């Protein structure tokens, strides 16, 4: 038993930190309907600020902790409340875009300031403590666990007993109604977000000494919190606490049980248990148990203006002419960047098909691309002709599209985004380094094409090869858009309920769109690795899961056109890098902040033009109710 306790006790402590982070997440989601993908960034921000105050400004840790709580918990919470307010009526896609933009922006900001390396952080809580069944338990473990328990119990009682707690749950559904009852929805939302951000800040400060301070690790910590929240079905605080404990203790115990296993996939299961659990919950929890908060209030997208062939044909002809002339217009040194940009346009196109045409969210497009790239490399090395290998790379990603479509059958909106996010990370962490994908050496060599006796290995020839494939992919997207499936996809994006009410099988529609999207992303991935003639799944490299978040953020501010927007996005994301201004180290360092800010801007701009329901509105409502006798007249003192 004492052998197990060695693993269980630190597991409980880790689980307690996950619980504190998850409580903040559930609290804000329950009260705003906005699932904060940037929760990890908030946790990271707290850890960095705590480091700044304690280690760089040499403040005593309690003072540093209070200052961090004020900066992240209160000021950060109030800023997040404003963001959530502007997102209250936004379509789910834009809510995801905004919070992903925030994540990208904050992560880039702190990486730019503190560098990409992990900052070491000395423990500050007392480490000594009693022995339990022969196992030394530190005071820090006791404090962290007590904090998590107190937080869970306190919030649970607050939601059930306090008037403000009940109001917090009502504010997401109908703030106007709440204001008519004399409770300010703004005050309720502010309290919820400051509490939520404070919980996130505390978890960041508690985890910093355990793992050091690193942007990616904090994002991973947040995903453990997502997982705990998923076990609590994103609403139950006690179940969230329990889920966090299962993750903490489970990770620790599994690490012990599998420490002698020499299989690369199995031995990487323990640290990746949170992602596995998150995806499993999304895959198996009944649909009715996951009800999206605040969805009844969302507005649709403004319909796009359509252009006839008289306008479109000249534009397409001009675009093709520019595409053909590019090798002659740009220097040879820059041509490969354009080729990569074209390949990215296919991946952006696959994402646009999901997002803008059918209203489905995917945060794992680069995982599809990675499968396409690695399969392409394997197929070429096995002697398969280039074109066949490319087609094979696309087709092999289709079953993955099916796998992701399974949660899409039952889930939509925010839950689908979470499921695809978990799937992307799971694939990267468990399979990228296996022989099925990039292998343990993490580098696959691949040749450029020789098709029908033509040598297309030069940069220029490869550019034209990619251009032809990209034009064909665009033709596929246009054909899908104009087909019956395209009309059904647009119907799915606008109103799945109406489609079902007319006999439409939305499961089949979702299955088709995910398969086509995965196929295109697979092709795009294969084309990308053809540029450098090597494929790698290195963390932080081309196919890193954070890249999928960047893609979403960039595509969001490039419009909602199915063909034009992916090309603009690819240009912004890849091709601009060849220009001196965009190669400046400072610009490279800060570009994520700009991408993030633009994504947030696109998501909230429609709400800013809508009249804001503030205190004046609340006062008017109360006056109106008083006037017609539904509220008592205020008493005036002499």
């Amino acid at each position, binding site marked *: 038993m004492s052998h197990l306790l060695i693993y269980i006790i630190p597991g409980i402590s880790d689980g307690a930190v996950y619980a504190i982070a998850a409580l903040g997440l559930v609290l804000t989601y329950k009260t705003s309907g906005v699932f904060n993908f940037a929760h990890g960034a908030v946790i990271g921000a707290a850890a960095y600020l705590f480091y700044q105050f304690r280690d760089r400004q040499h403040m005593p840790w309690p003072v540093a902790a209070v200052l961090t709580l004020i900066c992240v918990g209160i000021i950060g919470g109030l800023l997040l409340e404003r963001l959530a307010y502007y997102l209250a009526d936004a379509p789910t896609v834009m809510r995801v875009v905004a919070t992903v933009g925030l994540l990208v922006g904050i992560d880039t900001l702190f990486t730019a300031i503190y560098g990409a390396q992990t900052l070491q952080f000395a423990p500050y809580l007392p480490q000594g403590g009693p022995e339990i069944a022969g196992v030394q338990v530190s005071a820090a473990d006791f404090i962290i666990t007590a904090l998590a328990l107190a937080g869970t119990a306190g919030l649970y009682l607050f939601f059930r007993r306090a008037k403000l707690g009940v109001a917090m749950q009502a504010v997401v559904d109908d703030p106007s109604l709440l204001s008519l009852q004399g409770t300010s929805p703004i005050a309720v939302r502010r309290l919820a977000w400051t509490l939520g951000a404070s919980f996130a800040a505390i978890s960041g400060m508690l985890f910093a000494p355990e793992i050091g301070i690193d942007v990616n690790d904090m994002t991973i910590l947040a995903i453990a919190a997502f997982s705990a929240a998923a076990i609590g079905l994103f609403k139950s605080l006690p179940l969230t606490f329990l889920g966090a404990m299962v993750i903490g203790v489970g990770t620790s115990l599994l690490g012990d049980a599998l420490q002698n296993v020499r299989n690369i996939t199995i031995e990487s299961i323990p640290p990746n248990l949170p992602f596995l659990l998150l995806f499993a919950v999304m895959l198996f929890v009944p649909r009715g148990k996951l009800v999206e908060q605040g969805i009844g209030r969302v507005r649709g997208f403004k319909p796009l203006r359509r252009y006839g062939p008289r306008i479109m044909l000249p534009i397409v002809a001009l675009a093709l002419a520019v595409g053909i002339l590019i090798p002659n217009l740009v220097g040879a040194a820059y041509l490969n960047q354009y080729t990569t940009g074209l390949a990215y346009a296919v991946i952006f196109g696959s994402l646009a098909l999901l997002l803008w045409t059918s209203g489905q969210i995917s945060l794992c497009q680069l995982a599809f691309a990675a499968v396409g790239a690695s399969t392409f490399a394997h197929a070429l090395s096995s002697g398969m002709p280039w074109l066949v290998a490319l087609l094979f790379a696309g087709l092999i990603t289709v079953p993955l599209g099916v796998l992701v479509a399974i949660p899409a059958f039952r889930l939509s909106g925010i839950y689908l985004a979470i499921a695809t996010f978990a799937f992307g990370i799971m694939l990267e962490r468990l399979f990228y380094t296996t022989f099925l994908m990039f292998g343990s050496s993490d580098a696959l060599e691949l040749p450029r094409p020789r098709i029908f006796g033509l040598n297309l290995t030069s940069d220029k020839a490869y550019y034209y090869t990619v251009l032809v494939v990209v034009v064909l992919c665009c033709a596929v997207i246009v054909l899908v858009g104009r087909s019956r499936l395209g009309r*059904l996809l647009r119907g799915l994006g606008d109103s799945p309920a*109406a489609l079902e009410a007319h*006999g439409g099988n939305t499961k089949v529609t979702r299955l088709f769109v995910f398969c086509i999207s995965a196929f295109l992303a697979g092709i795009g991935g294969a084309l990308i690795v053809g540029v450098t003639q090597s494929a790698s799944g290195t963390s932080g490299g081309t196919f890193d899961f954070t890249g999928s978040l960047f893609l979403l953020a960039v595509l969001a501010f490039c419009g909602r056109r199915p063909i034009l927007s992916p090309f603009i996005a690819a240009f912004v994301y890849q091709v601009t890098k060849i220009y001196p201004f965009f190669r400046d180290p400072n610009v490279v360092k800060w570009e994520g902040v700009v991408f993030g800010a633009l994504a947030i801007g696109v998501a909230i701009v429609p709400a800013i033009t809508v009249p804001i329901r503030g205190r004046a509105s609340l006062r008017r409502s109360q006056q109106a109710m008083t006037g017609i006798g539904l509220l008592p007249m205020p008493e005036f003192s002499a």
Partner: protein
Amino acid sequence: MTAQSDLRVDNMTVRFGGLTAVDSVTLEAKAGVVTGLIGPNGAGKTTIFNACAGAVKASSGSTWLGEVRLDHHGVARRASLGLGRTFQRMELFNSMTVNENVALGPETMFSSRRPWGQLWCSRRDGADVAERSRVAMQLCGISGLATRTVGDMPTGQRRLVELARAIATPFKFLMLDEPSSGLDVVETEKFGDILQKFVSETGVGVLLVEHDIALVSSVCSHIYVLEFGNLISSGAAAETLASDAVRSAYLGTDSVYSEVEQSDRAEVGSHA
């Protein structure tokens, strides 16, 4: 022409946790006529709709479309078997034009007939969809709006688009959930005329949930009245609306009803 069917609900009970929203309700809506389902807010009308359509699971009882029992089927399957519906809160394809909206109704239905139906549209299907859309838009008087984007249109026109889409789809029975909400008096009258014309021309039965008593009394031949999930009255429209039970439960005081009745009579007289 598709054989039309009656809709029959036998002893339906719907519970949400401890709350019984619909309690042992039995009703029958015939093909070729409009049947009204009325009652105060919270009476359980939309719950019955949702249970018939498969969006809500009934705790007990059964739903029949003609001779076909629907209880074990999901929403899409019930619709493809011929049970159509509209929504209290309109569900339109806002990014599409009026013509595309109306056409997507029958096209969706046709796509469900074959496993690969979503990928492939035969020339015959295409022609059928176009013809059905044309006729439905003409009937609803929205042919002139065919190229307008639905998301930018006013409520009255959007209601007609939703009706046209339902009419264009080869349903055997239609359930309309408060179709006149948001319409003014003139629009409501026009809506009633279209509905009557559609029913008399096609023989499709309609179950109508509606708060507008003028519309109910003008188009319905038979009415069921619900209160707190229980059926409290049913029968021919005029007698049912005049019954004391309905007045006290739904219409409020005698004087209010009398005003409605008098204004309706006056209107009928002026038309005559």
